[in-house]
């Protein structure tokens, strides 16, 4: 089983877990298993067309999966997938500092 790291802003949709072990031979498999287990995560990770939203990046170890085959990226048991969302470190958009 591969590990997938859940970033802080999304933990509220994943029973507050920071790491989950899931089965899968490809990145797509693991992400599908993740959203099957935590359906609330799905709409935050995927748009209506079923594509990964582009304010969220997924890394296999230290490589962005957009450049290693996207969902088809092969995943081994020793691998770690990381979900890395954009954080702005301050107000939500529209806060007083815009």
């Amino acid at each position: 089983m591969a590990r997938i790291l859940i970033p802080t802003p999304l933990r509220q949709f994943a029973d507050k877990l920071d790491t989950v072990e899931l089965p899968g031979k490809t990145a797509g498999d693991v992400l599908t298993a993740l959203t099957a287990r935590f359906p609330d995560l799905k709409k935050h990770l995927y748009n209506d067309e079923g594509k990964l939203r582009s304010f969220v990046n997924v890394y296999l170890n230290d490589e962005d999966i957009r450049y290693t085959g996207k969902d088809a990226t092969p995943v081994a048991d020793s691998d770690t997938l990381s979900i890395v969302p954009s954080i702005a470190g301050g107000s939500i958009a529209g806060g007083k500092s815009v």
Partner: protein
Amino acid sequence: MPEVGMEGQLKLKKASVLLVGAGGLGAPLGLYLAAAGVGRIGMVEFDVVDFTNLQRQVIHGTKDVGRKKLDSAFETMSDINPFVKLERHETALSSENAMEIFKDYDIVVDGTDNFPTRYLVNDACVLLNKPNVYGSIFRFEGQATVFAYEGGPCYRCLYPEPPPPGLVPSCAEGGVLGILPGIIGLIQATETVKLILGIGETLVGRLLLYDALGMKFRELKLRKNPECPVCGDRRTVTKLIDYVEFCGVPHREAPPEPVAASGDIDPVEVKAKLDRGDKFTLIDVREPHEFQICRIPGSTLIPLGDLQKRLGELDPESEIVAHCKSGARSGKAVDFLKQQGYKKVRNMKGGILAWSDKVDPTVPKY
């Protein structure tokens, strides 16, 4: 230090750095870049010091509460190093002024706190060919890198699309470890000095991730996206756009007229309803740790994340007023409830902060 020497110090003296923001990240940046002897430092900031800033914005102190952040920051920086030329940009950065402000500086450091400005800073830097020393924080985690430098990626290569407004709470709403922007700001300061001196290996093409709780640093590879609309091979963005719209935030309009039973409700009116004994439900959508700090008597805590699960507790026919800390999360709650068919839901404008200002000053702000 032999790696710097007189030659390096003169490079610092000749260099010009623009700090966008004098808050959590801007504070350590201002302090240390002044200390390092950067010759000219500009700062873009229009905000005023609030005492809730002091937990992390260490360039300001209690005596500065109520003062302009620029005045407070510059006073401290010139005390540290009177030879630094400090330049004020007391304005909100916008598509109208960014290019003009940025063009006179060698390096831009992004210490802002919201997505529209981050995209604006990025695009302006790419268009003007200036490195963008980026840092961002959330709770106990931080990110840092250098964008738009020597063929490296830009912010849009990494994140072509911003998150929907309200998904990622602000430091004000979600809280942040005060020390965290200190560390990330200092990483940005280090990168800035390295860029000026031309030494070491910068974070170009590398995303540094810092996890304060685990005390771990990790690094991810950042690639330039050949399809990037701003810095890619077939650019479509050749001038600055409306970033507020890009980030899906409704433009701020004039304060709405009071409207009965729909839209916002002022805290003073909520107090009047409570005093009269009106039949309605006041829900507080903040987190339990916030409820511990302060609450409005008569409110029921239903954290925003639990709202869907606890809909059964709310009668769709009843009048409901939702509040949070400043009115943002409760706005989301109201939208959600309306989508679920609740007809009489309103958002308490300004949240418990406004309640403290207008109704009961004994309620602590945080």
